[in-house]
């Protein structure tokens, strides 16, 4: 108990960093991921292939490597001097958006083909078909797996702690400097993550149960 209460500010700062990183990366990756998904179902072959190449490359790259690149290699290009926090955010956004893209795209694919055919037959354009018929139905099958992707993102933010971003995953280093019991300290970190992740998991299961049988 002492380990937690003596270092409460440290835990506060750490988990605040985790949540900040999570929120920034979540918003960014949702936007970029949706754009990528739109590219992958668009009628323009060039854009489709860009999307496919991007997703296949990123999904087969370890996140640690992406963050490694932004932490150590990016400064060599001398493009702009941005803080570790923002570099980690960019890395997480680039990585997560590939997974968001796949979730959104496969969500679009779960809508029965007849729906799109019917709206095409009624003379809807691509934009109208997507916006008024396909996407509203796709959301049902997109949101539960998207929650999963976001849970994974939340857990993945810890990797940024390995690259000197102030974050819950890095609390142990501070504790061991101050001579506290790292084992107990880490168990508290684990509990903190359980408190963050479990409600999201329950939400996801609830959504899954309520929405998926309707089809």
């Amino acid at each position, binding site marked *: 108990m002492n380990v937690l209460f003596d270092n409460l500010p440290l835990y506060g700062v750490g988990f605040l960093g985790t949540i900040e990183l999570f929120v920034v990366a979540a918003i960014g990756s949702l936007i970029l991921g949706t754009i990528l998904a739109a590219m992958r179902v668009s009628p323009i072959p060039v854009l489709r292939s860009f999307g496919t190449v991007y997703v296949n490359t990123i999904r087969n*790259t370890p996140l640690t490597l992406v963050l490694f690149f932004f932490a150590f290699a990016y400064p060599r*290009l001398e493009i702009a001097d941005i803080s570790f926090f923002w570099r980690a955010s960019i890395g997480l956004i680039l990585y997560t958006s590939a997974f968001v893209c796949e979730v959104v795209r496969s969500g679009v694919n779960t809508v029965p083909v007849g729906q799109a055919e019917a709206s095409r037959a009624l003379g809807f354009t691509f934009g109208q078909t997507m916006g008024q018929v396909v996407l509203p139905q796709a959301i049902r099958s997109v949101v539960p797996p998207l929650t999963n*992707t976001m849970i994974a993102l939340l857990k993945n933010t810890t990797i940024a702690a390995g690259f000197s971003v102030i974050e819950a995953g890095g609390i142990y280093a501070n504790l061991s400097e101050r001579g506290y*019991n790292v084992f107990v300290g880490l168990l508290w970190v*684990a509990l903190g993550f359980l408190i963050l992740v479990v409600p999201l998991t329950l939400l996801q299961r609830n959504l899954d149960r309520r929405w998926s049988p309707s089809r």
Partner: protein
Amino acid sequence: MTAVLYDIPGPKARARNLTLGVVGTAVVLAIAAFVIYRFIVTGQFDARLWEWITYVNIQYILLGALGNTLSAFAAAAVLSLAFGAVFAAGRLSEHKWLSVPSTAVIELFRALPLLVLIFILFFGVSRGLGVDIPAYWAVVIGLMLYNGSVLAEVFRAGIRALPRGQGEAAYALGMRKTQVMTNVLLPQSLRAMLPTILSQLVVVLKDTALGYIILYPELLYQARFLGSQGQLGAPILQVAMVVAVIYIAMCLILSGLSKLLERRLRRSPRAAATEETEEREVAAAQAQGGGGTFGD
């Protein structure tokens, strides 16, 4: 689906698509050109910074690092398959005293970030309990606990997605519980599960890179080491690129294997019909583990 979303384009739509295509290509090319321009301006293409690739010693260092990565991967893959099988069986069991703890273990390890798990094993256990766990085993055990739990869910979903009649018929024939599982349920569900299992193994391979953070001398660790060597001109960008190519190639081979298998299994039309629902549920179980380092 994609083909139904729009008509075969007429002249107007073709022109519009062409413009959009050209603009899109231009944007992507502009980004690529900018990055290459920065490479040139900061001298990253200088021969001196790439020379290290030709040194035999360095090639051996990288080869050894690759070996370390692969051995951690192999051990973690085998152990997490075993872990997954045991805990899936535990969770499917009819005995409460077995299924409740198994469920708890699976849910716990799926909810914890893998890195925190590895930290607990590497820093926590040695300093808290006095048992030293080498970096290699910290990585392998961490990977086993996390991916094993995800795989347990995959196995469970695969078996539960089978039509109930299969198990009932086997029981009616007088088979025992173990026989029903090993002779009837497992052979059928494994077919549907194989692609998902393989893609989970890609996650294992990717996550071995976490070993870098606790200084297990795998590929990324050696990349950092080589990249900081002043004699070589500190070519960290170049080393990172080469290592990235190695990682992506290895993962693509594994992913390709799982795609190939999927197509192979699809080929028999009778199996395809029942498998589709099954695969969806299996994939959903995997996704819950969180896509990978995401899971997936």
